[in-house]
Structure formats: structure tokens, C-alpha cells
């Protein structure tokens, strides 16, 4: 049951092959049995999931089922869920029960999805290994001594281990694509503004975007069809029509122009990862695509630019956590300043504190021009590189991450080494473009992701290009041992 596609599950539910309650119970049992090895869930919502599944079964019986009626999903614990704890992986929000649903949560519920629970993540989505979570690290299902990637590490591990058919994620600098790559699943970060940020706890508001983590491009298309769209409650939401992503999956890709940026294949890329990425590109040639070498000359600057822009926005967004209105509050504050300082020091972990301080520093008087303004100018140059590239090619491909999953604990003492994991994913966020990661041939039993970057609002093409590869290959079907 856990290896079926979303389309198969939806068809089976309609035919009453099994009920949504049975399907939901099946996944809850798997979570109970297998998640102790992974720690991919922060909260499992057994009771509310079964109640929602019962409602779904009644709707299925009545014949007016929506596209996802009765399909279990998991949400990254960054999306507000009414009545269900939303921790954002932080002690700060350990006791936070959101008074409303995020738009993404609301839309998927309206389509009939059943929420199994909330997945683990790096604290406030700040991390590339899921090790900064207040709730402990997530273990990669392919090798439990290794990280799943981050920040959507819980969603990636849960989907890879078949603990849920699909999960939501968010991507500010690679947080959907990098864990998707390291866990061997399919992840899509849509264009900035494509999915609503309302009710999604903010990290860096000019970069944050919600997306899907699934076992295939086809499954991701089903979910994105329901998630995407304009939301007047999010002032940065894009008022652009949403095409039918499932409809476009099978389009022919003969003549597709693929750009390979030479900067994505240089020093720092593991040679074995490079080799399997090149093999995947050859598969695309067999499918009729044309390969062009391109250059994104400013992309090596994306990590330095990101570590100005993202912390600056984070320091401003996280100023709201003051120990007064919600979240953690210290014991017996002496005065208001003590209340703020101790509540925040106790509530935030080390990586969040580092980023708040970097952001505070670069925005402080006298430094704005040298850091923030300079970064925003280079960001413009990075976006222009992509614009020029998309005059010549339809999609850009390369590795998602320079290496396979690394051992837990390996990079926690060296923030800069950790940041360089996102060297191939960050430029996409800075430019606001959509990006995907799909599994290719593993290296030493560990998954490798091929990144596919598209032009603005071309999610349908990305999903189509990914689906054609998955139609011709079987890498995306592989399950980690013990989780088949």
C-alpha cells in the first residue's frame, strides 16, 4: 500500500478497495513502528487523522470526493495548523498551538487530504542537516548514521521511508531540494510567490517558498495542483493563473534545450556525484533533449549574498518572539529587557542565535551599504545571469548537492562548511526561480539528486521534464532497506 502513487491511492479509495481509515491506520502504524529509527515526526496526530479519515470516507461514499479526499499527508512543522502544535523545530514554540491554519494547510484540507502529523525540521528552517532541531536530529533512512539534509529533513525522511505518501516542505536556500536529494525523493520548490506564505512561519520573507516532497514528479504534480495559487492574505503572493500540472506531465521533451552551468560542475563537487549526474544528462539526450554548456558567472557569490540577505530578514522576522504574546517566556523576569533577553536566549538554539546576530550586525548603523545593499545588488546580477541563460535554454540542470548525505555531527562545529552544502541551490532562491530535485543513480548506496531549474512560473515544465525521466528510469522507485 505504501508504494502506491497518489493517483493509485485516489483511485483505490474511490473504488472502496480500502477505506481512508484503513489507509490512515496503515500509515500511523508504520510511523509508530518505524519512526523511532528516524525521528522524522515531531507530532503525530493519530486521533484527528482518524477522525478526518472517517469524514473522508463519508464523502467518498456520497460520491463528491475532491482530488485528494482521504489521502494522508504530513506537514512540515513550519505550517500553522489550528489546534495542533506548530513548533518550527524550536523550544521557543514548543507550547505553541496556532489559532489558525496556514493557507497551504487549508487548501490541502479543502481538497480532502488527511493530516497524519507534523514533521521534524531544522529550527526555524535554519540548517542543512536537520541537526538544529530542538527535537533532535532526523536520521537518513538510507543510512541512519547520516543526516537527511535540511531544513525539511523530517518531511524528506518520512516520504523516503514511506511513513506518508507525500509531505509539504519549505525552501529558503535549498531546504526542499537538498533533503530531497539526500533522501532519494522528488522535491519541488515553486517560483517565489506561487504558493501562499500565509501561516508559514517566516524565516527570510523575500526567499521563503512552500513546496512538495513526494516519491515522484507525478505525485508532486497532484499535490501542487491543490497547493498553488493566489492568496490575498499574502501580500507577496503571485496573482498568476495556475495551469493543470498533472495534464502537462506526459508532454514530449524532444528538442528540450538543457543548459549545464559550468560553475555547477567545478571544484567542490564529489567526482562520483558528478559521474552519475552526467549519466542522467545522457539519459535526457536519449530522450531527445539538446545539451548546451552555459555560464552563471555570479552564481559562486550566491552563498555570501545569501548569508547577508537571509540573516538580515531573519533577524527582523524573529524579533516578534518576545516572550509576551506567545511562545517561550523565561521565569521571573527582573524587567522588560530581561524578559526579552532571557526568553529569546532560552528559546532559540545556537544556529538561530548566530543568524539573528549576523543579521543584526549587517543591518546595524554604518554597515547597511557595505553588506545589505551590496548583497541586493549582487543578487540582481545573479538573477540577470539566469535571465540570459533562459534566452538560450529551457531548463538548467546540475547536481542538487555537492556530496551525498554526510555523517550526523560532521559539520555541526563549522557553520561555514554547513552553509556550503547549499552552493547549487541558493542562487535559485535569490532569483526567485522554481527548482526541483529528482533521484538519479545512487553512489555507494546513498541517494544523489539531479537539480532542474526552470524559468519563472514554469513548474509545469519542470514536473514534465522530471516525469519523463522517471518514466524512462527506475531510480525514484528504490526504497531504503527496512522501509520497503
Amino acid at each position, binding site marked *: 500500500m505504501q508504494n502506491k502513487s497518489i493517483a493509485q491511492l485516489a483511485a483505490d479509495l474511490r473504488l472502496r478497495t480500502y477505506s481512508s481509515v484503513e489507509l490512515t491506520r496503515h500509515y500511523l502504524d508504520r510511523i509508530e513502528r518505524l519512526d523511532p529509527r528516524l525521528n522524522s515526526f515531531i507530532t503525530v496526530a493519530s486521533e484527528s487523522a482518524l477522525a478526518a479519515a472517517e469524514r473522508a470516507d463519508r464523502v467518498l461514499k456520497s460520491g463528491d470526493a475532491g482530488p485528494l479526499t482521504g489521502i494522508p499527508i504530513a506537514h512540515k512543522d513550519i505550517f500553522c495548523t489550528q489546534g495542533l502544535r506548530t513548533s518550527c523545530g524550536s523550544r521557543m514554540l514548543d507550547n505553541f498551538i496556532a*489559532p489558525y491554519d496556514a493557507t497551504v494547510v487549508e487548501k490541502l484540507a479543502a481538497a480532502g487530504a488527511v493530516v497524519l502529523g507534523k514533521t521534524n525540521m531544522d529550527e526555524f528552517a535554519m540548517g542543512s542537516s536537520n541537526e538544529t532541531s530542538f527535537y533532535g536530529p532526523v536520521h537518513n533512512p538510507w543510512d541512519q548514521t547520516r543526516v537527511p539534509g535540511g531544513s525539511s529533513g523530517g518531511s524528506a525522511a518520512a516520504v523516503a521511508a514511506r511513513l506518508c505518501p507525500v509531505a509539504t516542505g519549505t525552501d529558503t536556500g535549498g531546504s526542499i531540494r537538498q533533503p530531497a536529494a539526500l533522501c532519494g525523493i522528488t522535491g519541488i520548490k515553486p517560483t*517565489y*510567490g506561487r504558493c501562499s506564505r500565509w501561516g508559514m512561519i517566516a524565516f527570510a520573507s*523575500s526567499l521563503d517558498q512552500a513546496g512538495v516532497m513526494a516519491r515522484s514528479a507525478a505525485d508532486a504534480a497532484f499535490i501542487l495542483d491543490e497547493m498553488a495559487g493566489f492568496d*490575498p492574505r499574502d*501580500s507577496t503572493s*503571485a496573482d498568476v493563473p495556475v495551469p493543470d500540472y498533472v495534464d502537462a506531465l506526459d508532454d514530449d521533451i524532444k528538442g528540450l534545450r538543457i543548459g549545464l552551468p559550468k560553475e555547477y560542475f567545478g571544484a567542490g563537487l564529489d567526482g562520483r556525484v558528478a559521474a552519475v549526474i552526467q549519466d542522467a544528462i545522457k539519459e535526457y539526450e536519449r530522450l531527445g533533449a539538446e545539451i548546451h554548456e552555459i555560464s552563471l558567472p*555570479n552564481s*559562486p*557569490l550566491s*552563498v*555570501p*549574498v545569501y*548569508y*547577508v540577505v537571509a540573516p538580515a530578514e531573519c533577524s527582523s522576522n524573529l524579533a516578534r518572539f*518576545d*516572550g*509576551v*504574546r*506567545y*511562545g517561550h517566556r523565561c521565569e521571573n*523576569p*527582573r*524587567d*522588560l*529587557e*530581561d*524578559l526579552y*533577553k*532571557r526568553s*529569546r*536566549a532560552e528559546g*532559540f538554539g*545556537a544556529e538561530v*542565535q*548566530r543568524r*539573528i*546576530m*549576523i543579521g*543584526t*550586525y549587517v543591518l*546595524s548603523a554604518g554597515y547597511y551599504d557595505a*553588506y545589505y545593499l*551590496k*548583497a*541586493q*545588488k*549582487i*543578487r*540582481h*546580477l545573479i538573477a540577470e545571469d539566469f535571465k540570459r541563460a533562459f534566452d538560450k535554454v529551457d531548463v538548467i540542470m546540475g547536481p542538487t548537492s555537492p556530496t551525498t548525505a554526510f555523517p550526523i555531527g560532521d559539520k555541526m562545529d*563549522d*557553520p*561555514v562548511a554547513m*552553509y556550503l552544502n547549499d552552493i547549487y541551490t541558493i542562487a535559485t532562491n*535569490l*532569483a*526567485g*526561480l522554481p527548482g526541483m530535485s529528482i533521484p538519479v543513480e545512487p553512489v555507494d548506496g546513498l541517494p544523489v539528486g539531479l537539480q532542474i531549474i526552470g524559468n*519563472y512560473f514554469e513548474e509545469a515544465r519542470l514536473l514534465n521534464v522530471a516525469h519523463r525521466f522517471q518514466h524512462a528510469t527506475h531510480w525514484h522507485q528504490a526504497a531504503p532497506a527496512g522501509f520497503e
Partner: protein
Amino acid sequence: MSLDSSDIEKIAHLARLGIDPERTARYAADLSNILDLVARMDAVDTAGVDPMAHPLHMVQRLRPDQPSEPDQREPFQSIAPLTEGGLYLVPKVIE
């Protein structure tokens, strides 16, 4: 760019973070390394380049000046650490 412990104390105060004095040296080293990474930006000539504030060059939408949200004071205050009579309680600010 190298920051020392007194810089960290100043930054932490601006960010209202009461960091443990034992950790300031470590934070100073980490933040200095991050700023070294950021310093790679200095090599780029950005004269005449416009800063990019938004990926899609959108403008702020306006909405009609009408109430759109119902009163939710009770559910919002039910998750607050300390309230009384509809007010949030904090330590005495004015002596």
C-alpha cells in the same frame, strides 16, 4: 572581518539576546568566519547596479480599507504566557 567578544555583546544587546558569557568567544569566532565568507562580495564591482528587493519586481498591492478579520482576542490570548482582563502582562516598565 574579525569580531571580538565585546562586539558580540553589543550585537547581542541590539538583538535582545541574553547570551551566556561563556559562549561569546565561540560566537565571535563563528561570526567572524561567516563574515569572511560574506567578504567575497567585495571583489564584485556593483557600480551602477540596482539593488534587487524582490525577485518578481512586484509592487505592494493595496486592499480596500475595510475590516477583514473577526475579533479573535480570546483565542490569541489563550496561547499567551501571561494575560489579565484582555491585556498582556509584562514586568513593570514605568516606576
